[in-house]
């Protein structure tokens, strides 16, 4: 009964909407419909429109197949320069035809349609098709994540001006069948861009998103991707260098000074792309933080310059006896601590240096300490503690991410129990539980300047927090599926997110708006990393690795898919010359990042063939012994630390 009445009900709804009471009553009488059915019907606006406009095709499921065939023929016969752009239309048209067939209860035809044309779709859409294929009945459309996304959003297709006029001409010729016209009108947003039609490679590089490509308008906003001036550095060098001179032979520091001056010379030069320093209020540095910073600078001066000729050494930390229980790892900025989150909701922290992990003294003992003493920080720690590993308990679900703050005093963890916890590395207890996410939290990252952190989760949002607020400061919503990973920009003004909807987005922390949407990934994005200079963003998916240019929001380079399993770790060397990627296929690959950026800057001079590219970008690959890589970290001196868990020989 419902199937017969769907259009009638839709008409009723329309009448109700325009408040045409009299007509509604007449219709109701004539069709002898009760009030009850009407209440049940709350079709979305778009569906309503499509039902009403395509009413007469409803009875003819064969017209869909015919229309799709026609569209395909038109695209095949069009000129080469338009062909590739136009072919991006096929997938959305196909999906909506399928959904329409289901909606009109032509379930058999829908299944046939899917079987016949499904295999022709691009291979990166096949996973989506499989997910869509489980919708076999119209009741299932409502409540199905993917079907709802498709029916409530418009799929974006970019066409050149000529291609779009070709399309228009074709649609006008198809007067007999309005199926395609309806779908294009209701569900597809055609973005017309000036300039010549794009090549196959160009089209391929940006397609793949759940809802097609990003529109150009969305990426117009200026992004301040430059680095912040480091105000504290001016204060610090003097004491640092004093220390150094005291430590080392008198003739050596001279060289160092010269080098260091270089570092300082570079930074104060104001970067035209840098945001003002006070754009985001940043926390004042504490005394202890300054010491840590000082250490960092001193270490940095001993850094080895890396390049294609001088590859880094890799120290591999194997987690033994962990099986599949170890999930995430993090190494603190100073490379002294290693944290691992486990599926049994426990977190373990190891020290990687001979320094033991000490807890703070009890309150009574702390009273006895002279607070003015120079070494108060040392004195307040219990000197009897000699642990090399400490466990933190509190979560009630698998821990999906742990993160050390830049100053090594706190640790954040995100878990399946939908909470984020802040732990103190001095008391070794939990300080705060941040509740806000509704479902599992997948990722958490600190701002490089501390204080702020950002989380993302299954609830399709990313949230910005400050450690002293129990509520999020910003909620970044817009992703169509899980937000799987987040990353703070080095200047703390932006947050990048990667999602299962196969887009990477960049959000402004100040305004909370989306400033970039980057499409081109063909699979879920699992990890993100900003380059040291702040302009590039590397993102890793299921074997794919793409480097984005944030200034334009376009893919700077698509690295050859040499990883055969999801990439879960990315790290830039401290001098920004090498990008390392670690994957579940038990290998670490080193990429020549200078070559990648040069290529992207020279932009499309000539698209070399893939083999040559492989040669050019990939420097070396290292296999581990059945230990999937879970974390990568460059020390300040450019030694690469990798963490993986040994999964036994088999």
């Amino acid at each position: 009964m419902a199937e017969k009445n769907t259009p009638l009900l839709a008409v009723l709804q329309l009448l109700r909407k325009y408040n045409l009471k009299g007509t509604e009553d007449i219709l109701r009488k004539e069709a002898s419909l009760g009030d009850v059915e009407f209440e049940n019907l709350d079709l979305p606006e778009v569906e309503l429109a499509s039902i009403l406009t395509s009413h007469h095709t409803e009875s003819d499921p064969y017209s869909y197949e015919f229309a799709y065939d026609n569209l395909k023929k038109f695209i095949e016969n069009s000129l080469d320069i338009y062909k590739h752009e136009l072919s991006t239309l096929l997938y959305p048209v196909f999906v909506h035809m399928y959904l329409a067939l289901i909606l009109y209860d032509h379930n058999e035809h829908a299944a046939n349609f899917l079987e016949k044309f499904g295999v022709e779709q691009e291979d990166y859409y096949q996973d989506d098709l499989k997910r869509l294929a489980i919708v076999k009945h119209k009741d299932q459309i409502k409540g199905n994540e993917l079907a709802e996304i498709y029916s409530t959003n418009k799929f974006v297709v970019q066409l050149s001006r000529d291609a779009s006029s070709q399309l228009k001409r074709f649609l006008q010729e198809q007067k007999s069948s309005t199926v395609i016209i309806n779908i294009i009108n209701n569900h597809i947003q055609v973005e017309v861009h000036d300039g010549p039609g794009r090549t196959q490679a160009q089209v391929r590089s940006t397609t793949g998103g759940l809802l097609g490509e990003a529109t150009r308008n969305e990426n117009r906003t200026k992004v301040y991707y430059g680095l912040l001036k480091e105000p504290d550095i001016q204060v610090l060098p003097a004491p640092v260098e004093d220390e150094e001179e005291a430590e080392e032979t008198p003739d050596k520091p001279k060289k160092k000074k010269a080098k260091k001056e270089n570092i300082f010379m570079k930074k104060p030069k104001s970067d035209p792309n840098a945001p003002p320093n006070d754009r985001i209020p940043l926390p004042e540095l504490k005394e202890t933080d300054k010491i840590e910073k000082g250490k960092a600078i001193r270490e940095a001066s001993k850094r080895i310059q890396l390049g294609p000729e001088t590859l880094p050494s890799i120290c591999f930390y194997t987690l033994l006896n962990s099986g599949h229980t170890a999930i995430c790892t993090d190494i603190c900025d100073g490379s002294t601590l290693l944290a691992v989150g486990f599926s049994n909701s426990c977190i373990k922290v190891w020290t990687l240096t001979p320094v033991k992990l000490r807890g703070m003294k009890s309150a009574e003992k702390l009273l006895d300490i002279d607070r003015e003493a120079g070494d108060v920080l040392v004195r307040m720690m219990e000197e009897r503690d000699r642990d090399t590993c400490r466990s933190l308990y509190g979560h009630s679900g698998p821990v999906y991410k742990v993160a050390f703050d830049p100053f090594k005093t706190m640790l954040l963890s995100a878990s399946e129990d939908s909470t984020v916890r802040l732990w103190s590395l001095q008391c070794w207890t939990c300080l705060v539980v941040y509740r806000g996410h509704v479902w599992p939290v997948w990722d958490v990252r600190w701002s490089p300047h501390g204080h702020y952190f950002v989380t993302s989760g299954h609830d399709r949002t990313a949230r910005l927090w400050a450690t002293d607020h129990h509520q999020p400061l910003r909620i970044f919503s817009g992703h169509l599926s899980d937000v799987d990973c987040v990353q703070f920009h080095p200047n703390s003004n932006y947050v990048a997110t990667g999602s299962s909807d196969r887009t990477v987005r960049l959000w402004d922390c100040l305004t909370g708006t989306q400033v970039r949407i980057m499409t081109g990934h063909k699979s879920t994005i699992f990890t993100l990393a900003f380059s040291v200079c702040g302009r590039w963003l590397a993102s890793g998916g299921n074997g794919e690795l793409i480097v984005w240019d944030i200034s334009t929001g376009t893919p700077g380079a698509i690295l050859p898919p040499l990883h055969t399993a999801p990439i879960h770790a990315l790290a830039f060397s401290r001098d920004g010359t090498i990008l390392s990627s670690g994957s579940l296929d038990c290998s670490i690959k080193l990429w020549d990042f200078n070559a990648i950026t040069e290529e992207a800057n020279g932009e499309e001079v000539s698209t070399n063939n893939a083999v040559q590219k492989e040669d050019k970008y990939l420097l070396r690959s290292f296999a581990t012994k059945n230990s999937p890589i879970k974390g990568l970290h460059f020390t300040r001196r450019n030694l690469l630390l990798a963490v993986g868990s040994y999964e036994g020989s088999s």
Partner: protein
Amino acid sequence: MGDSEFAYGSSMSVDSMKTIAESIGIANLGDDAAKELADDVTYRLKLIVQDSMKFMHHSKRQKLSITDIDNALKIKNIECQYGFIQPDSLPFRFASGGGRELHFVEEKEVDLSDILSAPPPKIPLDVSVRAHWLSVDGVQPTVPENPPPLSKEAQKLESVDPISKLSKPTNKDAAGKPMCGKAARLKASESVHVKQLATHELSVEQQLYYKEITEACVGSDEGRRAEALQSLACDPGLHEMLPRMCTFISEGVKVNVVQNNLALLIYLMRMVKALLDNQSLYLEKYLHELIPSVSTCIVSRQLCLRPEMDNHWALRDFAARLMAQICKTFNTSTNNLQTRVTRLFAKALQCPSQTNNETGVGPSMVTSMKESEKTPLASLYGAVQGLAELGPEVIKVFILPRVRWLGERVEGALSGLGGADRLAAGNLKHQLLKVLAPVVRQLRQPPDLPEEYKRDYGYLGPSLQQAVSKIRSSPSGGGGGGAVAVVTCTPPLVPAAPSPSPSHHTSHISHGAKTVETIATRNVVISAAPAPQSPAPSTPPPQKFVIVSQQKAPQMVSAQPASGGHIVVHSSQPAIVRSQNVQSVVVTSGPAGGAAGGPAGGAPQKVVVVGVQPPHHLAPAAPAQPAALTAAHVSQAPVSVVAKPVFARGGAAPPPPELDDLSHLA
């Protein structure tokens, strides 16, 4: 059609719905209802599986687990399925009947009292972190923690199709496998690649390693030999030296068989064992060198200078076990390795007048043959041993039919004059009984009548009958055919060996000049004085016994796979990164002295007693190689193995452990 159906998913069948409905008490579910249910269940199951994939990805795994499903249910506000967490996958069982086919998961009833009374399971090992260098300045060091530079598959491919190496693009090094030092350096000048195939050149380090290893393996320093064998057994990246190693072994065997240099042969066999144990090597290419060498050590007419004295039997046993291992590892349908090896041994067992034997014409013919035409007894022993190691089926088919003839040979030799022959015959007889008894036990029904045995098996019949009934009566003999492989070795037949008694071993301290090398803390070295009742007049007075005991520690290996990653030299500990069970136990054969005392603990232990001749009785056999000179000090050692380790334990000992692996010996 079928393809696309597969691509876009399968669905629950109406039949399953009906079956499930029946199982919960709904007898007749309508077809429509079942169809409706099946569709809905399919849809919901798929949704749940989709969501659980997310949890799998975020747990950084590539295999879906039950906890993922649980988590997916949780975010849908459905209660988890409790009690399904299991380490391995649940096997589906299949049943059909009444025209219906059914897949189900077997649910066993568990007796709670069993679980309660069982000892608590072992506490899982704590997670620990271990650091190693994955790369040093862009070069991956070949340490056991890193994967072997050339995987076994690649080695295999190379052996099957050597051209593939040439045709591979040069960037393969950069893209695929890590490189060892030399290749990394060569990468700079890319032209060199082609040459490698032909020359097999070794780097200076490799040459040095080769020299050191081979010297240590055949040298006199037992500690170094242990290190060397350990290195051979677990170092990755030996494949470049493998051809040379194999040639070394095969040449060594050729020379030393001629020289009758027993000790060196043992050392070479131990090298073979170590190479076989190395998981990163693909040995198939070199079997043509190894198999003849090993089989030589099994069936050769003579392996030592004085067959009546030296225990070459142990070498034959060990080599036979090696051969069995080779057959097990490398036998394929194309190379028919096991068939060929079996044929080789079977040929040795064939009496020259084969037909007579088969038709049962009998003893007169055989005895009438000239002595010289017969296969020597030692070779027969080796062949029997070699076949026995291949399993009960082989014993049944190849040894059992010849037992009558073998018995006649034994009988003849025992009644004959030659001392060596008598000894050999005794050994052969003992071996035959041990090997055959379990098989015969399986073949025959209980009433074991000596007459029947006599009729069926000839001379050996009665003894065999005794052995069989002994197995039948002992409760531990229930192992059946499998017991064949567990060998307790030739005890009292070597005249030089004393019948050891507890007092011997615990009381005597050697007067050897050198200090003892205690190989590992678990190894106890005891020396004993010669047995006074030693029958052979030529036996030199002082006999030394080295007892090496080893705790069985394979559990440790499996439980903590990578913990022992470093090769622990000087230790018999089989803790290797891969959980291969490397039993590189060392026997010190030098003059020993010092530490006495029974091995501690109730764990199963293996005890081997080796008698060593003192050096001053050396026959000045001209050694073939310089290395043999050093080895000569321990050569011609009558090696005997004590079957009952209880003796060595000194009286109050736990139940006798099995002496199953002679690998410590050799």
